């Protein structure tokens, strides 16, 4: 046993007298080959980041937009969780992801993909039928009356309308934007914590209810609102940002730390606030921390291929929503001045885009499914896709396309 251990550790073996030099060198080479072979097989899997070109990005964006158009129902809702293998919808729906995909489509429209606008407008019309006004604010009410309001739904809807404002160049919704923002304010605690839910029964935020992502979503909405309609959003936005950066993970018992792509969007927005930079040491350190977590994720994810060996050693590939979200974060963080010159951040965000491009269902691949029109352009895993897979992937590819266009 020790003899083999010493051999593999290259500490020498008691050779028989007269053993040739060639044989000793050969034994050492064997130990090297075994070592590097084992490292390659177990640890150093290739990171498959694909090839990211503007043509591929534009094609993938158009395919994702087209998927959203083909799966939009006449009432303005989408197929929510779709089983491509059986061509069935899970029959569930909620407004957080509805708002998210609406927002992604307005992002696409703002980036010059004209087909996205009409689809987003239908989804917007549906969302507005769920608006409730109360106490000087408006919010998206839950689809089941009496249930708690999801802060995330209103946050993402507000973000969607902010992109719509850019697309339409209209200020007609400014009062609504303000009302939606005020609903978010009612859910922010003095500490900067954001309640995940608002209770229509008590007329107050649900104490102790938190979400790993709603806080960042609300923050991003407020940071954007401050740029568009400045005034009452600045202080609460900075309070939430500081809470996320310094206290959230501990206060909400989140381990490992949340790799918060929404907060990354917000940090990018804060970097563009006019005047003196608000990105102080704490916020910059947090931005770096999020970047580190997302970098780790994409370095790992890009090693997954879906093969049996890859599943055994790396697990199942992530959802399109997961790869999209981490790519959104990495691309957004490039706007943070302290990180903008970091080549590795650029490489990782491009890697995320490459993974997304490679995993989008092509027209040819879609033919394998009973309803190719519903499969084409989607990010399908284990035969299923959900609207947020397309939402996050689309947003991510748009961000990368923008970075490609402005090197």
């Amino acid at each position, binding site marked *: 046993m*020790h003899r083999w*251990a*010493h051999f593999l*550790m*290259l*500490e*020498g*073996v*008691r*050779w028989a*007298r007269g053993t040739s*030099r060639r044989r*000793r*060198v050969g*034994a*050492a*080479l064997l*130990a*090297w080959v075994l*070592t*590097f072979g084992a*490292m*390659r097989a177990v*640890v*150093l899997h*290739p*990171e*498959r*980041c694909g090839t990211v070109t503007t043509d591929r990005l534009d094609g993938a964006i158009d395919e994702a937009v087209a998927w959203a158009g083909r799966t939009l129902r006449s009432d303005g809702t989408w197929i929510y969780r779709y089983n491509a293998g059986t061509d069935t919808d899970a029959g569930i729906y909620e407004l957080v992801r509805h708002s998210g995909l609406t927002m992604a489509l307005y992002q696409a429209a703002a980036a010059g993909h004209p087909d996205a606008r009409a689809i987003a407008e239908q989804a917007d019309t549906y969302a507005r039928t769920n608006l409730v006004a109360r106490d000087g604010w408006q919010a998206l009410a839950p689809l089941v009356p009496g249930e708690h309001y999801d802060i995330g739904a209103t946050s993402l809807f507000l973000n969607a309308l902010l992109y719509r404002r850019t697309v339409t160049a209209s200020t007609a919704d400014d009062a609504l934007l303000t009302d939606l923002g005020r609903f978010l304010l009612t859910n922010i605690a003095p500490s900067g914590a954001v309640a995940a839910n608002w209770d229509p029964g008590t007329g107050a935020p649900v104490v102790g209810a938190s979400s790993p992502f709603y806080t960042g979503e609300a923050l991003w909405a407020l940071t954007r609102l401050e740029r568009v309609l400045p005034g009452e959003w600045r202080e609460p936005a900075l309070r939430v940002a500081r809470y996320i950066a310094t206290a959230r993970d501990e206060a909400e018992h989140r381990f490992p730390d949340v790799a918060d792509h929404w907060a990354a969007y917000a940090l990018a927005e804060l970097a563009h606030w006019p005047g003196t930079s608000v990105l102080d040491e704490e916020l910059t350190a947090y931005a*770096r921390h999020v*970047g*580190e*977590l997302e*970098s*780790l994720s994409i*370095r790992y994810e890009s090693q997954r291929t879906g093969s049996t060996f890859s599943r055994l050693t790396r697990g199942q590939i992530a959802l399109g929503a997961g790869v999209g979200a981490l790519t959104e974060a990495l691309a957004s963080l490039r706007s943070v001045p302290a*990180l903008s010159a*970091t080549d*590795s*951040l650029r*490489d*990782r965000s491009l890697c995320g885009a490459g993974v997304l491009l490679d995993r989008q269902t092509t027209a040819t691949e879609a033919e394998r499914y009973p309803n190719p029109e519903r499969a084409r352009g989607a990010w399908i895993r284990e035969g299923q896709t959900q609207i947020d897979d397309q939402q996050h992937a689309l947003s991510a590819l748009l961000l990368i396309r923008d970075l490609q266009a402005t090197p």
Partner: protein
Amino acid sequence: MTVWAVLLVFAAAANPFRRRRCLSVPDGRQVIAGAAVAVAVYGALAVAGASLRDALDVSTPNMRVAAGLLLVVVGLHAVVAPLPAAPTTIDARGGWLVPVLVPVMLRPDLALVAFAADRTSGVATVALSASVALAAVAAWWCVGARTPAAERWLGAALGALTVVAAVRLLLDGVFAL
């Protein structure tokens, strides 16, 4: 990776206290020659590191993770394993190659560290660290005490230090941008 981190990894993993017995040559010049060639090779590996990583589709942080994992094993082995048996002394002109350069001075664990070097400052850092570490191996071979018990414990202590340095390298790779 900072200069100090690389230096620590090389100095600990080179482990003069365990390697001395493996340098079964009678002539100190062969030890020095083998060490010098090894330093040059580590430097060359650091130069080639970026190209090799690109060719293998492996990022720098992941290479550091791999190096860290391997060094944890090397360090733990040095902590728990008895000293290697002293090989038969080789009195030949090629002693600098076998057994000095191969297998003692030129090692895959340290080669992985060299491969993981930064594109810019890494080559100088690796060359400097390898020089210091392998000079220490050669120096201990020349002047070191020959008490097995002392060498066993000193080797184990450097093994523990290797584990610490390896974990640091590992975390540096895991939490890299």
